[in-house]
C-alpha cells in the first residue's frame, strides 16, 4: 500500500490537456443544435478527471472530439501545447462496449494497437504480456472475445488502450454496461492501474459515486447546450475508501444538484 501511495500521479510530465473555447453543434433536421458551448478546461498531467452530467449534456461528444473521431468543432484542443488533429496513439480510448474485434484472440486484439510501432517483435510481445497481466487476464491470451465475460472484455479493452503508453486515457462510461459487483471491482482495478501507469485520465460516467471515488476532479455538466456547471476538486489521496465521509458529503451535494431541482 505504501508503494502505491508514494507513486502519486502528479509526477507525470506529459499529458497536459487544454481545451479552449470549445463549441460544437450538429445539424438536426436542418436546424443547428448546439451540443457543447464554450468549454474551458485545463487538465494537469497525470490528473484523473471525472465528468458527470445528465444524458444529452455532450460529455461523450467531448471525448469523441478529444480522441479525434470528430473534427468539426470551434475552439482548440491542445495536448502538451500541441493542437490535436484526428486520432493519435498518444490518446487511448475505452468505450462502453468493449469494441474488441471478435475474430482476434485477446492477445491479437491488444497486439493490434502496437501494429504500426517500429519496435522489435519480442519487445511488442513483452508489452502485450505485461498489459494483459496488468489488467489481470493472464491465462486468457488465446481466448476470443465471446468467450470472455463483460468485465473481462472491458479489462482487455483497457489493456488495449494502455499498451501504447498513451499520455491521455479517455474512458467513455467504461463500466456502464457491467453489473454492480463487477463495476465496483473494476473501479478498484482502474484506480490501481492509474496509480501504476500515471497517465492523464478523463472518464465520462453516469455514476456519481464512481466519479467521486476515482476523480481528482469531478466536472459537472449541464445540458442544452452542454456546458460546464461546476469543477469540484476532491482533495483525498489515492487509494481511497469507498465509504469515506468526505465522499459521502460530496455525493449528497451532487445528487441534490443533479436530481433535485
Amino acid at each position, binding site marked *: 500500500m505504501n508503494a502505491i501511495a508514494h507513486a502519486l500521479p502528479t509526477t507525470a510530465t506529459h499529458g497536459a490537456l487544454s481545451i479552449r473555447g470549445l463549441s460544437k453543434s450538429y445539424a438536426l433536421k436542418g436546424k443547428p443544435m448546439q451540443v457543447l458551448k464554450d468549454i474551458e478546461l485545463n487538465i494537469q498531467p497525470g490528473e484523473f478527471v471525472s465528468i458527470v452530467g445528465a444524458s444529452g449534456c455532450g460529455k461523450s461528444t467531448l471525448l469523441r472530439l478529444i*480522441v*479525434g*473521431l470528430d473534427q468539426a468543432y470551434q475552439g482548440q484542443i491542445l495536448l502538451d501545447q500541441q493542437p490535436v488533429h484526428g*486520432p*493519435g*496513439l498518444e490518446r*487511448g*480510448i475505452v*468505450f462502453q*462496449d468493449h*469494441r474488441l*474485434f*471478435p*475474430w*482476434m484472440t485477446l492477445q491479437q486484439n491488444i497486439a*493490434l*494497437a502496437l*501494429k*504500426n510501432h517500429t519496435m522489435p517483435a519480442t519487445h511488442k510481445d513483452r508489452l502485450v504480456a505485461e498489459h494483459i497481466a496488468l489488467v489481470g487476464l493472464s491465462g486468457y491470451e488465446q481466448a*476470443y*472475445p*465471446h468467450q470472455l465475460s463483460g468485465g473481462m472484455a472491458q479489462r482487455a479493452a483497457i489493456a*488495449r488502450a494502455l499498451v501504447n503508453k498513451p499520455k491521455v486515457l479517455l474512458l467513455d462510461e467504461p463500466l456502464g454496461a457491467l453489473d454492480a459487483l463487477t463495476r465496483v471491482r473494476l473501479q478498484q482495478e482502474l484506480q490501481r492501474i492509474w496509480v501504476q501507469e500515471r497517465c492523464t485520465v478523463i472518464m465520462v460516467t453516469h455514476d456519481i459515486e464512481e466519479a467521486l471515488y476515482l476523480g481528482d476532479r469531478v466536472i459537472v455538466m449541464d445540458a442544452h447546450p452542454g456546458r460546464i456547471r461546476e469543477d469540484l476538486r476532491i482533495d483525498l489521496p489515492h487509494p481511497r475508501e469507498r465509504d469515506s465521509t468526505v465522499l459521502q458529503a460530496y455525493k449528497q451535494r451532487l445528487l441534490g444538484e443533479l436530481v433535485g431541482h
Partner: protein
Amino acid sequence: MNLKSLRGLVLPLLLLGAWEYASRQDAAGAYAFVPLAQVGAAWVEVLGSGELLVNLWASLLRTCTGLALGIVGGIGLGALMALSAPANRLIAPLFHALRQVPMLGWIPLIALCFGNGESAKLLIVSLAALYPMVLNTFESLRQVEGQHREAARVLMLSRAQQLRLILLPAALPGIAAGVLQALAFAWVTSVGSELFLSSGAGLGSLMMNAEAGARMEIIVVCVLCIGLCGYLMSWLCTLLSRRLLRWRPTR
C-alpha cells in the same frame, strides 16, 4: 453412429423403393425407371472402363477453377463497389442489369464468341460463381459495424490495414455464405454447360452420349454422381467456413 444421423437416409431409401417398384410394373416402366440392379451394373461398368472418373474429373476441375476465379473476382469487385462510391455508381447499374440474365441465357452468346470448347464453359462457370460473390461481399462489407471502423481509426491503422485486418474479417461470415452459394451455382452450370456445349469430357457429356445410345442406366449413374459430389463439396465448404469462423459465438 446413432439413429438420428441416419434419419436423412429415410427419404432416399423410400425413393429407391418406389423406383424399383415402378420399374417392375411393365415394359414402359422398366425403360423409364431402370431396375436398380441394372444401374448397379452400369456403375461398375463405367467405373471399370475409367469413363466415369475421367468425366467426373473434368467436371470437377472446371468447377473448382471457375469457382476460384469467381471467388477472387467477386471479392475484388464486391470490395471495390463497397469501398468506393464512384466505382459503385459506375458499375452497379450494369452489374445488376446483367445478373438478371439467367446463366443459360448467356450460352448462345458465349458459344458464338468463344466456341464450344473448355474456355467457353469455364467462362460460364466463373460468371455463375461471380454473381453471388459480388453480392455477398458488397453487402457484408457495407454492413461492417461503425464501431469496428472507429476502433480501427483510433488504433491508427492505415487504409490497407483496415481492409485486411478489420473489414474483410468482419465481412467473412457473409463472404463464406457467398462461397457456399457460388459453389452450388458453379457445379450446376459446370454440368449444365456440357449439356449445351457438347464437346470434350464431363459428366454432362457422358449423359448426352448415354442418351444418344438409350443407356438410361448410365444417365441415372451420372445424376447420382452429380448429386453426391455437390453434396460432398458443400459439406467440405461448410467445414472449412466453420473452421475459419471459429471466433464466432456458438448459437
